[in-house]
Structures are given as structure tokens and as C-alpha cells.
């Protein structure tokens, strides 16, 4: 992907590349499709409004954009507060569905239940890693953890989730 045109950022290409990642970040973060489009739009609108203030020498574009998304996500979750205890996840049965979308939504709901019992920071790591598809180094930058710490925590969280899946 080419995001640079001479010294200018190619905003169209950035949008094309980042929109699905931001969208999935919120899906994973919220555990549902509800409000995901709204939050994605809000993130980009805020980023586009302040694009003249973006300084490449201070941060990579992804870091900058996901910082905005994190703030928006955090504000939204604070307003919502509807976490479930991890025990509730045990009641979610795996069930197949012929409709792939429905199945994916059901899996997402299951993930939300499973993640509901995890600390906030770990839920955030899962959303950044698997929703936004960003690497551990960038996650480390965004969360203030060390890169190895990110890897260790993610490994443990994924093991836990897989056992209960």
C-alpha cells in the first residue's frame, strides 16, 4: 500500500486501509455491531477535522488515528457500562448457523461475554490485535506497555478465550 504521495499523505488510501480496521476495532471492543458505524464515523470525522494538526514527526498515522479511536471508544464505554461477569460466558453454547453473518454475530456476542470478565486493558489488547490487526509494537506504543509484555498478555488471554470458546 502506498500512503505517501511525494511528501503528502495520501488520505484516500489511508481511509481505504484504515476504515475496516477502525470498524473492527470497535466491533471487538464493544462486542456487538451496535454503534460500531457511529463510532467509526466519529473517529474519522475527528481525525479529518484535525488532520492539519497531525505531525508525522511525533507519531505514525496509525498510532495517531487509533489514539483518537481509543478515546472515542473509552468515552462511549464509560457512558454505557454494561460488562458481564466471566461466569456468564459459561452459559453460551456453541451453535452452528447456516447463515454466516448470523453466525459471526453470534460469535461476536460470545466473545463479548467471554471478554466481559477480562480486565479493561486485556479487552483493549484483543480489540487492537484482532480487530484492528495492528502489531505488538504499535499496540505497545498505544497502551504504554512494553512490546514483550503485550505479547505475553495476549498469549495468555487468547489461551483463556480458546479454552472457553
Amino acid at each position, binding site marked *: 500500500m502506498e500512503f505517501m504521495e511525494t511528501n503528502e499523505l495520501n488520505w484516500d488510501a489511508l481511509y481505504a486501509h484504515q*476504515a475496516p480496521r477502525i470498524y473492527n476495532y470497535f466491533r471487538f471492543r464493544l462486542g456487538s455491531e451496535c454503534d460500531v458505524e457511529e463510532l467509526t464515523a466519529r473517529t*474519522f*470525522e475527528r481525525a479529518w477535522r484535525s488532520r492539519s494538526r497531525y505531525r508525522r514527526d511525533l507519531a505514525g498515522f496509525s498510532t495517531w488515528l487509533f489514539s483518537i479511536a481509543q478515546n472515542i471508544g473509552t468515552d462511549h464505554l464509560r457512558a454505557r457500562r454494561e460488562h458481564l461477569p466471566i461466569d456468564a460466558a459459561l452459559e453460551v453454547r456453541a451453535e452452528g448457523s447456516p447463515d454466516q453473518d448470523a453466525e459471526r454475530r453470534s*460469535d461476536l456476542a460470545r466473545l463479548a461475554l467471554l471478554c466481559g470478565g477480562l480486565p479493561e486493558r486485556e479487552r483493549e489488547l484483543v480489540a487492537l*490485535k484482532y480487530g484492528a490487526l495492528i502489531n505488538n509494537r504499535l499496540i505497545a506504543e498505544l497502551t504504554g506497555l512494553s512490546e514483550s509484555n503485550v505479547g505475553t498478555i495476549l498469549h495468555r488471554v487468547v489461551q483463556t478465550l480458546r479454552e472457553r470458546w
Partner: protein
Amino acid sequence: MNDDFLHRLRAEPSAKFLAALKASLDRQAISHGQARRTLFRTAILATLIGGSAVAMAFVAWKGLPASARFATRMSGAQDRASQSKIILSAPNGGGAPKVLTRAAGGDAPASALPATPVTLAMQPAPGSDRSRFSLAGPKAVASNVENVARRLGPIGPAKPLDITPASSTDAIAMLCHVHAILDPHPGFVDVAGASRRILPAELESCKGNGVTRVAELLLGYETVVLARSNLYGTPKLSARDIFLAMAAEVPDPNRPQSLIKNPYRIWNAIDGTLSEDKIEVFGPPPSSAIMAAFQQTLMEAGCATFRSLAALKQSDPKRYEQVCRTVRDDGVYKGMVPNLRAQLETYPNAMALEDFRDAGVQGFVPAAVDGVEPTSDTIVAGTYAGSRALYLYVNIVRAYTVPGALPFLAAYVKDVQEPWSFAALVPPRRQANAGNLFALEEMKF
């Protein structure tokens, strides 16, 4: 770490949502930009209005209605630009046909074709017993000629075109056959279409058979592109990448001399610098003209980058065509879908095989191939690999005996230059056919 179950949870946002948000962001950007540009635009507008007023006043002062003077000038300019260069003289005393240039504003010679379609009527040659205009050629040539003929309607050939599908080689052979000199037998033609220039050996064959008066017309450039949605920027590929992504058989990476069924499913398996996206191409059916052009341009260009495959062209032409032109049928290449635009907007990796002009109309972004983006300039210059020139070779003696044949050809050459042309070709430079309309013996290779 087995985390597939998490990867599977990802979903693509809807194309509708992405497009709506992008439009909203663009409007936001435009509204910021507009404020800065308003002053500049106002100044430009004032200059234009002022300039126009001065010009109108000048014309009125000269004593002619402005519209009449403007129309006169435009008409003369168009004639000079596009028509005067394609007029053929009637063969006179056995001499070679000549390209005549009509003096600006003057009358055309009595023997020349009139310059505008309105006056294209031509009397049948005395003694002519056949008014059917026969043409053979590849599908691309035939379909373009048919489309234009349909649009030209009454000013086209007097009788419907008699079109025979044929390869370039066969079409030229049908034109140059000894039976095609004056009154072709069925199966021999007045005009041959070709997706390449006539070869010196074919030229000799024509001469040997007595078909010596042949003119060459450059119809335009058939151009294919691999394009994706304009949401995702310009893809950058090489012809080799395209061949490896699309061919049914490719060289085995471990033993390049042997061929294997195409194993590539991901772009960066072909080249590590490409994206880690699934290869997915939508396009027309294998029998289409676009596919034929794709196979003979981009596919072959990529195929020829493998020395062992390029050598097949001489040693085993059939095998060469089979390897270099056969598109995979394992699901990576798919037929056109009903809402192609939405598909491409939804899937950033998805590409469409399209005609260059159609891709532009639909707002798709064509891939640059080997660093060359398809534009009118790169296509005409021959630097874009996905393009090929189409030619017509005309038996001049026959064409003069078929009413409407030469007027049609003249009108075709003009039509292809127009933005509304039904010919799906990139037009040649306006001067191209003035330079190329040689009699056979004058042609240079």
C-alpha cells in the same frame, strides 16, 4: 498461537457505509478548501466575464453576428483537423491511391471523398455487381466496426456489413488471396481487421497475388486494465505479477523449467512486496474481446519475462499460446457480478478486468503495470503493456467498387476520435491515419 477463531470474527464494513462516510469526509475537506479558493475563483470569473465581453464587442464591431462567425470558424477548424487527412484519391491510371489534403476553406477535388458525413454519398462504380462490404477480423475489430456502423446508420455502408470472425493472420490471408483482387469469392474479403501490423511476408504474399493497392488505417488502441475501487488508491503491479496471478499454469518456483498448476492465492506469495491480500479478479467471460486482449497483452507480457516460456514462441507456438494465454479456472478469476462497483468497494483486494475506457467511466482506478499507468499518452506511445493497436487493411480497388465502403471508413476514422464514439478504443493521434494511409508498396516496416 492458535487464534484463528478470533481472526474469523472480523467483518468488512458495508460498502454503503464506507462510501457515505467517505463522501462526508470529502465534503468536510472541500468546505475547508472552498473558503480559501473563493477569492481566487472570483478573480478568475471576473477576468473571464470581462474577456468575453471584450471579445463579443470586437466581433459585433467587425459587423458579423458572433454566432455565425464562431460557427464558420469551428466548422473550418474541425474539417482541417480531422477530415482533410483521410481523403483518398480515386486510382487514376493505375497509380497508387494518394492521401489528399483539402485546402482550408476550399472545395474538395471532384474525385475525393467529401469531408463531412452529411455529404458522404458516393456513386456505385460502373459495372459493380456487388455492394456488400465484407470484412474479416478478430472479435475486437469486428465488434468496434459493427458498433460504429450501427451508430452511423444511413451514412454507413450501403448494405449491412458482412463480417467474418477470423484471426488477424487469417483475415489478412483472406484479403490478400488471389481470389480477392476484384470481386472476392465468398470467404475472401475487402477489408481485413488485425490486432497487429501486417508482416513483411504477408505484404509479399499480397503483392504476389496481385492485391497491391491496400491502405492501412490505424483504428485505435484496445486497452485492458486491472482496476479496483477508487476508494483504495492505485495498485502497482508488474506484468509478471499479473501473469503469475492469472495464468492456469506457472513455472514451478523450485524447478523453473517445469510448469505447475497455479498455486498462488495471495498477492505476496508472488512477490513479497505486494500486499498480503487474496487474489480475486472479476472479469468478462473467457470468450470476450476484453479477455482476448488481456491474454495477448498483459498475460503475454508477463509470460515473456520467463525466458523458457518466451522461447516457446519460436519452438512450439501452440504450447506457447496455451501456457501464456490460458487463464486459471480455479475460482480466483470470476465472472462479472451484478454490482461490480459495490463488490470492489467492499473488498479492497478485489480487482476487475475491464476495458480502459469503461473502467474510467465507472470511476475505477487502473493498476500501473511495470511502473506505467494507463493514460492516453502511455497507450498511444506504446509504453503501457495492456494495450494493442488495431488496424484495418483495405483493398482499395474493391473498396471503390462498393458503394459506401470508403465513406464508411472515412466516417469511422472520424468517429473514433469523438468522445461519444461507440468504438471502445483509445483513439490514435489525429494525424496517425494521415501518416499511415499508404498504398501497400509505400508502406515501411
